[in-house]
């Protein structure tokens, strides 16, 4: 082959040191280093520079990560649009005095847009309405209607946590849905005969937690707990109040 080979200059040698040349060029430059002392000296100086930089930063790489940099990674799941629902809930709560509740309720589905994009299809227990409202359906709706916190929920896919009266006078319940790969925690309030989902947090389960059963509510994400705190009027229902609410078909403030 007699094709023109590009001239070897400093940039070529830099690319050689950086491993950026094509394999045949790497071989060609490596061979030339034995013939050209100036090339060799330049490459050696650049390797020494790389080595010096590596040595200088080695202690940093060996350090444990400071807690303040680990904290963001442990915080509330980032896919919860916390600011969104907090702002929204604030508006919702501020409306509750003047506007007929059933008419003004618009609940948002708070699901990670990014990482859980495909999880929407894995949330068979809710349906979205065109107005943005998200309603529990199927097995989850059944559990919200019938299941009591105190009942044996071990084998249930939908588990009920606490039940409470919202400041707006609705009966609300927290729930956990354990799908094949996704666990969802949420809070829903009964309105217009449906369970409207006020907040929902989904997480993918790892193999390790498949086995671990946690009491409903015990593993409630902060965002759901905060939503409950925003909504709740007084204390959660005790077993008797929960049963009474069920018997009254979760009619909330309208219950006699």
């Amino acid at each position: 082959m007699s094709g023109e080979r590009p001239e070897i200059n400093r940039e070529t040698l830099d690319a050689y040191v950086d491993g950026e040349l094509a394999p045949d060029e790497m071989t060609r430059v490596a061979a030339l280093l034995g013939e050209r002392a100036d090339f060799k000296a330049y490459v050696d100086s650049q390797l020494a520079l790389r080595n010096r930089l590596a040595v200088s930063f080695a202690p940093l790489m060996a350090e444990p990560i400071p807690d303040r940099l680990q904290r963001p990674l442990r915080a509330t799941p980032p896919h919860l649009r916390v600011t969104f629902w907090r702002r929204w809930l604030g508006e919702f709560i501020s409306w509750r005095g003047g506007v007929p509740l059933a008419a003004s309720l618009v609940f948002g589905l708070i699901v990670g847009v990014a990482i859980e994009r495909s999880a929407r299809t894995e949330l068979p227990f809710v349906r979205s309405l065109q107005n943005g409202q998200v309603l529990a359906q199927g097995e989850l709706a059944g559990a919200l209607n019938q299941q009591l916190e105190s009942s044996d929920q071990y084998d249930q896919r939908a588990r009920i946590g606490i039940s409470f009266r919202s400041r707006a006078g609705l009966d609300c319940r927290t729930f956990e849905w354990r799908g094949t790969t996704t666990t969802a925690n949420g809070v829903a309030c009964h309105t217009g005969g449906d369970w409207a989902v006020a907040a929902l947090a989904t997480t993918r389960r790892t193999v390790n937690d498949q086995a671990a059963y946690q009491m409903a509510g015990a593993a409630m994400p902060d965002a759901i707990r905060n939503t409950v705190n925003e909504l709740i009027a007084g204390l959660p229902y005790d077993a008797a109040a929960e049963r009474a609410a069920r018997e009254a078909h979760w009619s909330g403030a309208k219950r006699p």
Partner: protein
Amino acid sequence: MDASLDTIRSQIAALVPRLRRFALSVTGKRADADDLVQDTLERALRHLDQWEPGTRDSWMFRIAQNLFIDAKRAARRRRAVFVDTEATMVDAAYDGERAVEALMAWRETCAALSTLPEDQRSVIALVLIDGMTYRDAADVLGVPIGTVTSRLARGRETLAGKIFGSTAELHQ
């Protein structure tokens, strides 16, 4: 298939040491570097919808770089200066003679890096210190590869001159 939240978190966590090294390379100060990494993590976690599998390294570094540039713009208004040699980093990692050598190396490196213009410092941090390819560095910085190589060449020359006293010359 989307990565699980745990997987994404662990992937981001695995990048933290490299991000800290990059941040320290460009800021020169421990506290500023960790502030930059913390801001980077928080911004990344808020914008995971922009996460594209396979590009996460350059995506995270791009966030860090952009935050650094923003911070420098703000600092420039306050006439902040890049100077800080921090013995604490080295002291914490090494003892005795090794610590002295490492500390001296760090001081020289830090002083040399501080003489580089920011654009050259970022390229040096990404390619020579982090070991990124030219293409990835260009992606992080949002510049053509030719710009990466020319900044790299200038930065190398300055650094070698500062650290070793001279740059090897080519005869031609």
